[in-house]
């Protein structure tokens, strides 16, 4: 059996040529080969949401996704979100300002899930935000600040859009 296959990944706009076995998850490759440790490893069974990244703009759990199957797609991790905006993304800013970050472990996944959601649905109701974030566990905040942060980010982004 030939185990190593050449895999080309595009992460945060950077191209990587890797030689990895097919049984490695996207989460493992991001953290261990690319040292992008902003993507968190926690439950590893698609329950907690800490490993969420964007694949062509859609939030997925990187612990359930094979790295080889992410070829040809644009991967965005939390490291790329801040870089592309030059400063904090409005969603990150809203998380900081509303106290939605405590220990911070769930934050990268939630921020990316919020981005994917707000890109599709810029004017959400609170109920829609709750539904959009069901796949994320937070053991500190009690969720209220997180919901508020996503709504605040939506308002901020809508305000910016109106100015343009």
């Amino acid at each position: 059996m030939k185990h190593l296959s050449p895999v080309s990944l595009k992460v945060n706009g950077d191209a990587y040529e890797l030689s990895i076995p097919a049984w490695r998850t996207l989460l493992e490759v991001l953290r261990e080969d690319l040292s992008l440790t902003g993507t968190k490893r926690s439950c590893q069974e698609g329950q907690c949401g800490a490993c969420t990244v964007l694949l062509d703009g859609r939030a997925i759990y990187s612990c359930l996704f094979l790295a080889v199957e992410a070829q040809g797609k644009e991967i965005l991790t939390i490291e790329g979100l801040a870089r592309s905006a030059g400063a904090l993304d409005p969603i990150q800013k809203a998380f900081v300002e509303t106290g939605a970050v405590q220990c911070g472990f769930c934050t990268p996944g939630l921020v990316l899930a919020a981005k994917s959601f707000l890109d599709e649905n810029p004017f959400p109701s609170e109920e829609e935000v709750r539904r959009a974030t069901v796949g994320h566990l937070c053991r500190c905040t009690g969720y209220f600040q997180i919901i508020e942060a996503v709504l605040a980010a939506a308002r901020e982004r809508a305000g910016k859009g109106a100015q343009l």
Partner: protein
Amino acid sequence: MGYLRRLPRFDYLAPRTVDEACSALAERRGDARLFAGGTDLVLQMKRREITPRAIIGLKGVASLSVIRSQAGGIAIGAMTTFGAIESSPLIREKHDFLCETAAGIGSPEIRAVATVGGNLSGALPCADFPAPLMTLGAIVRLRSVRGERALALEDFFMGFAETAAAPDEILTEIELPSRPGFSAGAYVKFHDRHAMDMTTTGVAAFVTWDRARGLIGDVRIALSVSGPVPLRVKNAEAALRGRRLTEEALVEAGLLACREAQPRASWRAREEFRRELIGVLTQRALRQAGEKARVAAERGNA
């Protein structure tokens, strides 16, 4: 349930067409598993419940994720994700309850990856999609190097995690026949949390209204997590045909449905509780679908 480890080793095959996938499966017969979204399979492999020598990844077979109109009905590619079903205008127009059912599965992250073909082929009793599709008279298409065949979805499930697909066959498409006039469906489920949870029990109902007589015309009822396989409850269906949509009729149908079911006891629910749920959920699903079909008939909106 074993503890989680890193994935075991496997060969990875990435066909680009259905023909290539069929050949790969035929060649590796017995030691390869088809890999759709992978949200179930990755977990089963991490737990070492399955350790296939090879997996055949289907994400690169573009023709399998198409939703199209066909002879008045709809054909849904097996690799269509629940996210795509949720937001499909074509499916929403004909069967909006399928969009709602899709939207109730897992989380957005799961729905972006998990596929309808995987949900059917996994043949787990807790799957939400088989029952609603069964009430619509869905047909599944199976392909192999030997050819193609079609099978009623009702005849597809053989047992826990067991289907009628031969080891060299691939589920390629789910076909929904054209929707009769003045009809509507509903799927209601009970689960402990409102999201990210396995369904304790679910009931799908599809009602066609007899406009001329103001009665229930045809009705189909199918249950999830109420036996080793998703099942139609035909006694309950028969009892409702030609009846008025009254509380009495619904209660009777609920009783018949919970008698026909074969629910098991698990930590989620005792058998008695599941039976009670089946009765209640059957009434709710019938009320939702029946009212919608009746209103459509009264307004003349086929």
